[in-house]
């Protein structure tokens, strides 16, 4: 969940809850206030009536008063004394066709020494409409407030967090092997400024570590070339000496094979660091089919020794914009890999489609296909390859922007996609 949404969720939950709880509470509260107000009014009327009652001297006065003040009803008391009581009731209004609620005060009054029951009533309709209106207005206000709050909060948060998102975006785009530095936008928020400085330092430390590791591989490989050359030359001189026994010859041969393997391994390591260091920058369009056929020709004899058949099919005339040396190495490694790991008398199939190269060969499924392109990953210890061939292929694909995929259905299947953009 996104950071902004997470805070939002809580805000909105709180606000909705508040609204749901407060709206009825508010309504009840206002309602209560009105009822109280109305009752005060009723008692006020009662007080007025008592004051007026002093001036009523005859029955006709009383009748006039009754006619003038509809809200008062006077009837002779059935019992005495009549205590003050408040209650509500509704009367059906035939004009409006609705029940009209009233609040009523009943009390006793003595006019001209006669006991009367006085009923003062007040229609609640007007006031309840008012209460409703007030509640609606208040609720709308609350909702508007909430919407405004969400809106402001969202914009403000976006603004406040923008340095954070900017840093995140830059970090996502950063590639340790390509970008020399990371430039993050400064912020006037202390925390983000801290974050920026820390990230920049971290990246530059990592970059240095990466560079020194890369440099180390390259330097180590360079430095190894000379002692390897010395060792090889001495072995060759040893071969020229006289009276070598069969036992010695076998030993020398084994040494020579081992030395060749080290030399090859070293050469491949060096090649790998060179590809990583982008030392093959120049590109030109190459007709893929021609390059494949040229490489296959180099391995013609190795295929013949294993009685293997190789086929190339192409319907697309695909041209690849690539460093020709890298393409040669890529094809050479893929093809030699295919030949090496195929059973005798099988077939190596190469098919070129528009911008893709498919290489298929038979063989047992891999135990760890996910490690196929890792350095020094070998399926079996008996294999004598450098363990770098496919790692080099992967590196070339990365550098040149190709995509390589490996599948196994009933045979090994490598797919290289070129010209991706």
């Amino acid at each position, binding site marked *: 969940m996104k950071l902004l949404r997470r805070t939002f969720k809580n805000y909105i939950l709180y606000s909705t809850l508040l609204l749901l709880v407060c709206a009825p509470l508010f309504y009840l509260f206002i309602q209560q206030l009105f009822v109280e107000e109305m009752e005060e009014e009723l008692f006020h009327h009662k007080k007025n009536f008592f004051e007026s009652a002093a001036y009523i001297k005859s029955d006709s006065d009383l009748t006039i008063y009754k006619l003038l003040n509809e809200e008062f009803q006077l009837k002779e008391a059935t019992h005495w004394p009549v205590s003050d009581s408040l209650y509500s009731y509704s009367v059906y209004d035939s004009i409006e066709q609705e029940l009209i609620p009233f609040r009523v005060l009943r009390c006793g009054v003595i006019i001209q020494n006669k006991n009367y029951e006085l009923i003062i009533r007040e229609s609640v309709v007007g006031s309840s409409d008012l209460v409703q209106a007030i509640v609606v207005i208040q609720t709308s206000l609350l909702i508007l407030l909430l919407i405004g709050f969400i809106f402001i909060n969202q914009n403000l948060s976006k603004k406040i967090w923008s340095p954070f998102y900017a840093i995140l975006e830059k970090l996502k785009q950063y590639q340790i092997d390509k970008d020399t530095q990371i430039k993050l936008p400064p912020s006037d928020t202390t925390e983000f400024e801290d974050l920026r400085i820390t990230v920049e330092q971290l990246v530059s430390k990592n970059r240095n570590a990466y560079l020194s590791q890369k440099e180390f591989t390259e330097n180590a490989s360079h430095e190894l070339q*000379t002692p390897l050359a010395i060792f090889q*030359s001495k072995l060759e001189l040893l*071969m020229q000496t006289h009276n070598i026994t069969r036992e010695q010859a076998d030993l020398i041969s084994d040494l020579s094979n081992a030395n060749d393997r080290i030399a090859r391994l070293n050469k491949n390591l060096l090649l790998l660091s060179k590809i990583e260091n982008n030392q093959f920058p120049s590109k030109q369009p190459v007709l893929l089919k021609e390059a494949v056929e040229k490489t296959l020709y180099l391995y013609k004899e190795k295929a013949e020794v294993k009685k293997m058949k190789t086929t190339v099919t192409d319907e697309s005339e695909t041209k690849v914009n690539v460093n020709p040396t890298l393409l040669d190495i890529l094809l050479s490694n893929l093809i*030699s890999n295919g030949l090496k790991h195929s059973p005798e008398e099988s077939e190596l199939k190469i098919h070129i489609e528009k911008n893709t190269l498919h290489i298929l060969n038979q063989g047992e499924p891999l135990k760890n296909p996910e490690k196929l392109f890792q350095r020094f990953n070998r399926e079996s210890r008996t294999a004598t390859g450098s363990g770098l061939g496919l790692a080099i292929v992967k590196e070339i694909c990365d550098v040149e922007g190709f995509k390589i995929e490996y599948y196994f259905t009933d045979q090994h299947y490598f797919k290289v996609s070129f010209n991706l953009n």
Partner: protein
Amino acid sequence: MKILIIEDEQELAKSMKQYLRQESYVVEVAYTAREALEKVLMHEYDCILLDITLPDGNGLSILEKLKTENKLDGVIIVSARNSLDDKIKGLNLGADDYLAKPYHLSEMGARISAIIRRKRFEGNNAIAFHELTIDLIGNVVSVNKLPVELTRKEYDLLLFLVSNKNRVVSKNAIAEHISGDVAEVFDNFDFIYAHMKNLKKKLAEAGCVDYIKTVYGLGYKFEV
């Protein structure tokens, strides 16, 4: 024939010298760029092996000096960098060939003899041992003046062995020589055995003495 080895690694220089001495070359060694420049300016060499990563200066500067002195002919650049840049730069400056360390001495021997043959026998470039003649211009091998049909690989193989005559050439060196630069070499020498068998058979059928000896466990030797 005089050869100059410019190589700062003494042990390697020693090996090279020892290997080439068997071919009756006069071999001199320079360990530093300064020494090399002195020698180069004072003497004429048929072939110069130049390591371009010297402690007291880049070997390429020696190459430039040689170019201004017009003594470029017959320079083989040796580099531990195995870098395409160096190779291209060196060849552009006019070097004849390029060897990447580590290399087999027999490969070095073949390159040197190719250069020397080209320099010494202009126009008439052929190697002959009794009944066997190799015409290096037409790439034709003949026995008793009758041409023998060889494949490209068989021809390369014969020339490689002849260039290192009387010395054991290892299977590994042959495999690398025949496979070329790009191809990854398999630890399988079957294809060499096949080529060698065919080559020997064709030469024998043409009536050639069996000069190519199999050296147990190690490789082959062209013996005359």
